[in-house]
Structure formats: C-alpha cells, structure tokens
C-alpha cells in the first residue's frame, strides 16, 4: 500500500470531492474536513508503526514523472521527517475540529486547508528536488488566500507582504536546485545527499541561496519581518499551521538541503550560521518582551525558539565529535516538534480568547483565571512549556542544544539569556491576563466548551509526555541522526 502517497493526496482529493458535492453547506464542509484530516492522522500513525531505517530513507514510493530531466515522483521518510509528518497531520486534524465554527464561505476555507495539508505533508516527504519545490510553493499560495480571505482587520496588507516576501525568499532555492541538478543530472535528493554534487565556490553560492530561502521561512533575524504581521492577521487555524507546520519547512530544509547537500560549505559558514541562530534567539525574546498584543508576542517567541534550532544545526556542522553532533541534531529536531505542539496550543488558546473578547491586547484583560479556569490553566501550562520549564516539551530539546553548544562553541551559550527573558515575558502576560483584579467587562466570559477542550487536551497531554518521557520520540529521531550522512 502506498501509504505515503495516500496520506499526501487524500486531503486534496477530499477538497475536490467537496467542490463536486451538490450540497456545500458549512456543516457538510466541516464534516468532510474533520473526517479527511482524521483519516490522514490515522494513516500517519500506521506509517509511524512501519518505522524508519538507520542511515537512509524508508518506505520509499517512486514513480516516473519527467524522465527526460531525471525528475520523478519520489516520497520517503527518515527520522527527521517522520516526527514532522506526525506533527503536521495532528495539527491539521485539531485545526479542522477548531475551525468547525467558521461559517463565512466555509467550503472554500476547507478546500484551502486541505490543499495546505497536502502541500505540507508533501514537503516533508518529497525525495525529489523539483517535487519538494512544488509542494513548498503550493503551501505559500494556500496560506496567502487563507490570510487574505479569513484574517483580521489588516489582512490584505499582511497577506500581500507574506506572499511577496516568501516568494522572493523561495526563488533562490529554485536556483540552488537547478544548480544541484545540472551538476548531478538528476533531481533525486538521495543522490544529492549521498554524493554532494557541488564543491568549492559553487557549493558556497548554492548554500547562500538555500540559507536565504530557509532563513525567510524559519524565520531568522533579519528576514523575519513578515512573520508578526502574518501571524497577527491570520485566522487562528492559519496561525497554528503557519507556526506549527510551515516554519518547520525552513528548519527541515536547513538540515535536509543546506546541511546534507552542501556539508563542506555549511561547516565553513558554521560560525556565521550559529551567530544568526544566537541573534535570532535573543532578538526574538527581547522583541516579544516589548509586545502588548498577545498574538504578536507569541509570534516573536517563535523566532526565539527557531533560533535554538538554527543553533543546534550549526553546532552539528561545526563539531567533529559524532556524539555531540547527534545530541545537537536530536535537540534541534525535537525542538521543531515541541515548538509545533506548544506554540500550536498557544495560538489555539489565544484564538479562543479572541473569539470571546474580540481583543488580544493584554492590558484589556485581568483576573480571568477564576472566570475561565480551563482556558487559564491551559495557557499557563503552555506558557511554562514555552519558556522551557523542565518536565515540559521544550526542556529536553533546548537542554540538548545548549549542551552541544557549550561543548563546541562556548561563546554561543549567551543565547541562554533568552530563556530568562522569555520567562519574564510569559510571567508578565500571565499576570496581566489571568491574575490580578478582574475586569468587569469580561464577567460573562464562558469557559472552554467541549469542542475546544477536544482541541487543547491532546496538545496538553503530548506536551507533558514529551517533557517527562521524551524517549519514544527521541529514539525515532536518534536512529536517523546517529547515521545522518553529510
């Protein structure tokens, strides 16, 4: 059974079926959306049970596509992509449940969501350079229409900025892919990884092109400016997918393309990339500290968390010790997953708060914990997770990244300051929104209903599970990272 193909294309087929249906009420559309994303989630669980292999890709599915230029339809998995695939299918499933209240042009919304899921799964599983680029770009179009069509007040400007910024960002990757193709005669990413075709100055130029693309997507300082605008204006599910899934395209590409396909150039530029990671981590934390808009604040903490991932990958390229290298990559990959769970949940919770209050400015709230305990305690738990509290999802990831950093490039450990800053900003936000004197405007606020609890509880459980007993997840990553070829 070609399960990978099935999981990738089931969503878009569901979308097409929805278009063909005569009855396209909001109810039918959301029912379809939940059913399809649910089945896809189940499929990815089966894919997980089939497992990966050390030192290469597993569950490969291959089909001729454009034989004349060596491009083929190739899908496969390893310990880097499998956790991200699981994260993607989970977040899309939860987003579908959460979005069921959207009544404005619901069928179009659902079709876009399903198209995005196909693009996201395809991006993580593609083993063909051209195919990867196709999925990578399709996601961009889907997200543009998502923000422009269902976002908040200033959505047009934010969507436009997002589209132009990220298209400009992704075109250098196309150049790099063409360069890799011309020097190897194939678009097979496995060939590019096993025998990096570019050397010397060509490799460095390709690396710079790829770094630009992925830095925009991650986003790393100083090409992060689209992120706060897009996040704040996107509809809640859009923010969750953007932060939880699409930012991972950048970090995934950083490892899969930049590190694995131009390893020598990457090692040469390692210190610079490490510095970008450190600056992003610090900058994200301090910029978040300056926000009073809650959504913007979370958006900036994403830059901070993704900064740690960049640090982990850079350290892996710099170190000569295989053990340290594995620790760094394990940490970086785990950080991607943790960030998806934690920030995804935070954006869901902010969406729920905004649904009730139509505001996201922290100064407008106060003392909500007694009024809405489910919302409040969930937010507090996730905030603690986000600031890296031991026992919650981010801790094992960041711990490994810092451990490897300290061992390889001790100067970079200054990034740890960012943890103090995030601790401060989250405590401030919790105090302003959930503690203190109650604002009488919100006396009527309802707590989470059953559907909302259904969305949040899985993320809460997973966050604690990854924090307390991360071995089931780390083992999946570790097998690949130990034998990662670059």
């Amino acid at each position, binding site marked *: 059974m070609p399960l990978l193909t099935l999981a990738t294309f089931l969503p878009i087929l569901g979308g097409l079926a929805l278009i063909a249906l005569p009855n396209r009420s909001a109810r039918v559309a959301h029912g379809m959306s939940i059913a399809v994303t649910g089945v896809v989630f189940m499929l990815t669980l089966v894919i997980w049970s089939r497992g990966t292999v050390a030192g290469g890709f597993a569950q490969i599915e291959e089909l*001729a*596509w*454009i*034989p*004349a*230029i060596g491009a083929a339809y190739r899908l496969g998995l390893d310990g880097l992509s499998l956790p991200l695939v699981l994260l993607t299918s989970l977040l899309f499933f939860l987003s579908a449940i959460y979005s069921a209240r959207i009544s404005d042009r619901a069928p*179009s919304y659902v079709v876009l969501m399903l198209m995005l899921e196909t693009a996201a799964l395809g991006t993580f599983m593609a083993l063909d350079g*051209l195919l990867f*680029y*196709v999925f990578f*770009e*399709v996601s*961009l*179009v889907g997200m543009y*229409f998502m923000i*422009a*069509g269902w976002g908040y007040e200033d959505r*047009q400007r934010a969507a*436009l900025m997002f*589209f*132009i910024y990220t*298209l*400009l960002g992704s*075109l*250098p990757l*196309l*150049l790099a892919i*063409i*360069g890799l*193709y*011309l020097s190897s005669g194939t678009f097979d990413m496995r060939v590019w990884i096993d025998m990096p075709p570019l050397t010397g100055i060509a490799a460095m130029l390709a690396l710079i092109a790829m770094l630009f693309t992925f830095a925009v997507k991650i986003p790393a300082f100083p090409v992060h400016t689209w992120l706060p605008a897009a996040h704040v204006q996107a509809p809640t599910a859009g923010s969750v997918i953007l932060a939880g899934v699409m930012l991972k395209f950048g970090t995934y590409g950083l490892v899969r393309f930049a590190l694995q396909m131009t390893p020598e150039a990457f090692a040469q530029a390692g210190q610079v990339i490490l510095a970008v990671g450190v600056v992003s981590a610090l900058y994200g934390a301090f910029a978040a500290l300056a926000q009073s808009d809650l959504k913007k604040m979370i958006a900036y903490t994403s830059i901070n968390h993704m900064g740690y991932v960049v640090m982990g990958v850079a350290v892996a390229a710099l170190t000569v010790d295989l053990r340290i290298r594995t620790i760094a990559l394990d940490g970086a990959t785990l950080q991607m997953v943790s960030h998806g769970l934690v920030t995804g949940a935070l954006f869901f919770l902010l969406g729920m708060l905004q649904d009730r209050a139509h505001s996201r400015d922290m100064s407008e709230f106060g003392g909500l914990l007694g009024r809405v305990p489910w919302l409040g305690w969930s937010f507090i738990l996730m905030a603690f997770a986000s600031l890296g509290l031991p026992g919650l999802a981010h801790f094992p990831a960041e711990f490994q990244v810092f451990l490897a950093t300290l061992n390889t490039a001790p100067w970079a450990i200054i990034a740890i300051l960012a943890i103090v800053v995030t601790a401060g900003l989250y405590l401030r936000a919790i105090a302003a929104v959930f503690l203190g004197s109650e604002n009488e405007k919100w006396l009527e606020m309802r707590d989470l209903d059953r559907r909302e609890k259904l969305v949040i509880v899985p993320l809460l459980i997973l966050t604690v599970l990854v924090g307390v007993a991360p071995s089931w997840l780390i083992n999946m990553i570790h097998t690949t990272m130990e034998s990662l070829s670059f």
Partner: protein
Amino acid sequence: MERDLSFLIPELLLSSAAMLMIVAEMMRAARLALVIGLVGLAAATLLTLPMLHADTTVFSGTYRIDLISGWAKLILLPGTALALLMVRAEIAGQDREGSVYALICLVTLGALMLAGGGDIMVLVLGVVLTGLGSFALVAFPRDDAATEAAMKYLVFGAVTGSVMIYGLTFWFGGVGSTLFSELGALDGKPLIPTAGLVAVIIGLGYKAALVPFHFWAPDAYDGAPVSIAAYLSVITKLAAIFAFTQVLRDLPTSSGWPLVIAVISAVTMTYGYLTALVQTNLVRLIAYCSIAQSGYFMLGIVALGASSLAVPGLIVLGAAYAAMNLGAFAVVMISGRSLDDMRGFGRKRPVMGVAMVSFLLSLIGIPPLFGFVGKVYLFTAAIEAGFVWLAVIGILNSVLALGVYLRIIVPMYQPAQDIDESSEKSPHPALVAVIGITALVTLGVGFLAGFLPA
C-alpha cells in the same frame, strides 16, 4: 514532390479551409465559415500527430518538418480554434464576421510558415502573411481607436519588415544561399552575421513584441476586440518565437548573438512588468505582461545549442503560455476591460475566479501549474548555457510579476461595491468552453509534463 506535399497536409488543409471560409462569407454564412474553420483546424491538428517524430525538410530544405514545427502546429492550431470560439462570442452577428474567421486562419497559416521556415524567403513570406492579416484584424471595429492602432501596427510592421529584408540580403551575399542550414559558413566572418542578426531581431522582435520594438502591442491589443488581442498575443507571438528558434540555432555563436539576445531578454522582462505595474486597463496590463513573457521565451533562445533543454522548454512554455493567455483574455471578456471590473469577480463567479487565479499564478510560474514547468526548463537551460545572471534576473522578475498579478487577484476577492445587472447575464457558452479547456490544460498538464517532448 508527392513526398514533400504529404508532409504539408496540415498546411494545405488549413489554406483550403481558409479559401472555403471566404466562399462561405460571400454567401453570408458566417456560421458555416466558423464550422469549416474549426473542422479544418481539428483535422490539421490530428494529421500533425503522425509526423511529430519526423525530422526532415521538404522542398529543397526550405521548409522544416521537425520537433519545433510539429509542436508549433500542435500548439498554434488548437490555439487558433479556441481563438475562433472567443471571436464568435464577441462579434457574433456583426457585419464581416466570416471574414474575420478566414483572416485568422490565414494568419495562422503564416504563423506555421514562420515556425517551420528553413529559408530566408519562407521567413519573409511568413512575416508578410501574418502581418497583413493582423493589420486588418486589428482594424475590424472601424472606430477611431482601432483605426489608429491598426495604422500604428501597419507602419511599424512595414518599416521593420523592410529593414529585415534589407538586412537578410547580407546573409545571402555572404553565404550564397538563402537556406538557414548554410549559415554555418558565416563562422568567423566579421560584420555580415551581425547585419543579418540585427535584421532578424528587428523583424521578428517586432512580431514577438520584444523591447524596444514593442510600442505597437498595447495599442493594438487595446484597440482591437479583446478576442483578437488574445489571438495576436498568442499566435503571432509564438510564431515569432519559433521562427527565432529556427534561425538562431543555425547561426554560429561566434557572432555573439546569445549575449545580444540575453540583454534584450533581461530588458524586455523587466520593462514589461514594471510598466504593467501602473496600468489600470486590464487589456493593457495583460499586454505589457505578455511583452514580459516574450523576454522569458528568450531565455530558451539564448541557450539554443548549449542546452538540450532549450527547445523542449520553448515548446512547453509555448503551450502553457497559449493556454494561460487565451484563458485570461477569455475571463476579461466576461468581466470587462477595466481593473475595477475585477472587484468581487471571484466571489460572484467562484469557478471562473479559480480559473483566472490559476492562469495568473501559472503566468508567474508558481508550481504545480503548467507555466512553472516551462519556466523551470528555461531557467535550467539558461544556466546550463552559462547565463546564470539572466536566470537570476528572470527569477527576480517573477516577484515583480507577482506584484502585477496580485493587482488583479486581490480585488477579485473583495466584496463587490455594486451589483449591476449587465454583469449578471450568463456568459457566452463558447467562452465557458474556452475557459474550461484552458484551465484544464493549465491545471492538469503541470503534473503530466512527463509526456511532453524532451
């Protein structure tokens, strides 16, 4: 002789159809003329298929039956059929309707000659045949704008055509033959290759609307009926591109033509999109974008001989461009000529909206649409030929293109300000058919690109 004629069956079919259409027009049976045209085009397309893999010449090497001319027929003939349907939707019942159909088929015949020409004389014949018919087509509405546009088009065409013929005589003088295949003899000679090159660039550059020979295009497209603009922007442009391919692949690169073409390509792309950014008339906007598209085609011309992907790339982008541009113009025929007419279009007509969005995104080159496949081929070809800087400019221009096309896409999904009755009437079935077919090609073929030539 019989062998030669048997290879020309599609051309012969098309010219006979055109003659019959003139007869039908004389009997005031415009509808019959349309049917004859469509049947003739369909038959010619089908009969092209068996000779797609032929690689030969007929009539002493003057006319080429090869990959380029074969695929040119497969693109231009169905493209013309779609254009005929669009014309029908726009001018049905008007005086001289049948003449328009006949003229269109004759211009397409000229286009086929350009795409298959292997000889200076055939090239000149193609330029004249496409030119004369096009001037009349632009002047069809007989109002001031159309007359002025046709006049501009004619004068420009006459001047560039004469310059071209004059310059080409240098090649004949240098080689002693009018065949392109003999042009290799010019290798290393000074000046003579350049004289002919300048002539070809002026003559065909005018037809393909390359900067700086593009001035007629926006006026002609805007003055002519929208369907004629669609036809001219696709058929005559592609014919000129294919003619460029036939000539330049035989011209020795020692004359430095790739660099000249590369510079023209860069300027054309950039100028086209920059100017499109400030247009408020949809037809003019698309006109400037199609100027920019000519620049993209030149990416493939530059790489002729240096990359095996150049010719397949030109064919793939040619097919994609025909579908996207015809489709986009067909949508404009429904929405109206002004950018403001697009406001709320996507909400009012969701399916057409999706079709329009896919045409525009495909023109930018966003995957997985058809235009993306063509552009990847051409970027790869240009880089393989050593023109990395040109590929970079092309890629940067894609961002400019996004800015241009978003000016159409963004208002499409804003709430319409007022709902006027005129736009509520259901569109002509022929237009719906054209949009359906072109959208299918744009959306579907991106995935099936493996079946295309390479």
